[in-house]
């Protein structure tokens, strides 16, 4: 491994969250982004070819060193570390709406889920999974929410494009349109709740 790859390995090992290529570049004033990427490739190969117990994973816009999945059971059974806590159904539903509709306001979330979302929005904000990304131009200028990098981290996603495209879902959101249907009712959710 090159010295840069070693430096990056040390940095990834020291951090408790994924580090971006840009962040890793600050380790070495001489290194370009391309150098960092090359070093990351080298590190990944190093872990893979030498059958290390850890691997380099691309996550939430950055890189993190994680243990390989097949050790999970033993590690969990021995209780050396805690499993990432699961999210409730309400939290997951709300995240599902926000991740696909962001930036999105509370009224739209409630319209889609059919329930009040105040409590769950607060809880998700406290856990750092969503954040306020702006205000709508609509009446009362309601807050708009979006997902955070931590949301991607929790689901093991590189970025939002990792989410399944809606066309790929079994239930495509294309209701059988009656011929006399107004086009706008499908495109926008009324905010009259």
């Amino acid at each position, binding site marked *: 491994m090159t010295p840069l790859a070693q430096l990056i390995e040390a940095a990834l090992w020291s951090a408790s969250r994924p580090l971006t290529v840009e962040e890793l570049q600050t380790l070495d004033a001489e290194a370009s982004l391309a150098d960092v990427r090359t070093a990351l490739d080298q590190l990944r190969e190093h872990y893979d070819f030498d059958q290390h117990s850890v691997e380099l994973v691309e996550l939430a816009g950055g890189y993190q060193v994680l243990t390989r999945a097949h050790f999970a059971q033993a590690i969990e059974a021995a209780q050396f570390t805690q499993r990432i806590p699961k999210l409730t159904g309400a939290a*997951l*539903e709300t995240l599902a709406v926000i991740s696909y509709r962001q930036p999105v306001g509370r009224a739209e979330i409630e319209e889609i889920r059919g329930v009040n979302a105040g409590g*769950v929005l607060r809880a998700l904000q406290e856990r750092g999974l969503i954040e306020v990304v702006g205000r709508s131009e609509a009446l009362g200028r309601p807050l708009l929410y979006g997902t955070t990098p931590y949301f991607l981290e929790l689901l*093991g996603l590189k970025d939002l494009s990792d989410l399944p495209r809606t066309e790929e879902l079994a239930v495509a959101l294309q209701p059988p349109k009656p011929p006399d249907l107004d086009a706008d*009712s499908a495109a926008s959710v009324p905010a009259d709740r």
Partner: protein
Amino acid sequence: MTGPASAPTTTALGGDPGFVVELEAFSGPLDLLLHLLKEEQIEIGDIPIARIAEQFLRVIHALGLNQAADYLEMAGRLLRLKAQMLLPRTGDDDWEDPRHELVRRLLEYQQIKEIVRWFERAHERRSQQYARGYLPPPPALPEPPLTLDILALLQAVERVIAGIPDPVLHRVVPRALDVEGATRRVLELLDQQGEIGWLQALGPRPTIVEVLSTFLALLELAKHGRLNLFQSAPFTPMVIRRDPTRPAD
């Protein structure tokens, strides 16, 4: 969220012993509705509204969900739909299925549920891998045990006492509002100018007592019809005008 936790978790419904509903399993009225449709093996595109509305009401009643506004709102929507479906159709061409909006929402919600399942699988995969254990910052160290002798303690007490400044005593004098004086001032100003602004009525550098006195004087004068108070728009400065119908006194 929605759904009281005190209600029974399982309930048999409508004399159908095979139909058991788990309260905790529902995340909202749409979820419950989808469940009912599935139980009855009903196609979403063609919902027998009357029957489903009845089922829905029966379930929320049996489960004690009738406390939850979200469920009641859906019950209301279903009943309205039921009524709309009963209306005679005039001219089949421009008849729009009143169920369409509900169908759209159900399909949309179904898609959300599918995304949730995808999230759960992704999260499950992610939790198979561990990052380096997160070490929370160590808690602040407790203060070392306090060791001092009586002399040091007395010296400390003296230092504290020496640091106390001489007590400053204030006498609080109640100052009555001078509404009469303010009334005179306002009337004089009006005599000279006919129309003054609120800030003019206050005079330069008014004290809080003067502001209150002037305000009360203005209200009193306005009440007796001696002057009129105007605002050109909300939150704009108040304009004070002598009532032109009365002679100045």
